[in-house]
């Protein structure tokens, strides 16, 4: 995902939250996430985020995560 794009977190303790991509490096992405009254930065694995979509889970969740990683690679 590119800097500035909206993303939804699908893994780990922040899952379900949304953020904006700040930067990426290696297999990691940094998101700016609104948290209570402030914005914080959260760094996590690429495959713990997907492009932000409406509330229903996207098909990307159904697809094989290993295949997704190969696509990204």
């Amino acid at each position: 995902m590119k800097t500035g794009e909206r993303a939804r977190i699908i893994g780990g303790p922040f899952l379900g939250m949304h953020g904006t991509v700040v930067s990426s490096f290696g297999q990691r992405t940094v998101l700016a996430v609104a948290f209570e009254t402030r914005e914080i930065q959260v760094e996590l694995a690429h495959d713990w985020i997907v492009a932000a979509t409406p509330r229903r889970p996207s098909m990307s969740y159904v697809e094989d995560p290993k295949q997704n990683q190969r696509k990204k690679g």
Partner: protein
Amino acid sequence: MAAQMPRIRLWRFQEAPVRLQALFPEGKDPDWIASVPEPLAAVSEIQFLRWRKLYPVSSTRLPDGSAVHWGAPRESINRIAGQYPSPARPPAPVKERRSGVRVRLGCQARYQTGSSGKPQTGIGRIIDISSSGAAFTTDSLLRPGTRAAIYIPWPISLDGDIPVELHAAGKVVRGEETSAALQFDRVAFVAAS
């Protein structure tokens, strides 16, 4: 040069720095570890501890004031096991793929299968579930080998009565006209908004 904004770092257990893994000897994938710098430790604590009703979360403070949290969502089935009957083991000739605690949850769940081009969705009922898979009723045949996801309203809510769903995805390992079994390779809880 501008100072870097304090940043919370999240990892799958096996991808976390070894020094952080060592703080939680019971940890393994698919657990998670979070490292929180001192300025964010207090304000963000609730975000980690809110999962405690669903699965174990443990926290520790390091000498520099930062906090490290560990969560084990794989234990969520055990949390509810006492509230539901365990299914009978299958007779000897039937191969049982799942190990660990199995729970006869009996609730309704949504499922989705197919690739991005041809999604198939339906409503079923969970026959039983373990940390590695679930058997559920289906509206139609789900072919073994296909990818599928299932969305299960969880019987425990987060603090503040916020409902959560278990989202699990994997491969269909058994498919019949009105039931299927899914072996999980991804499991996550999502707070309903």
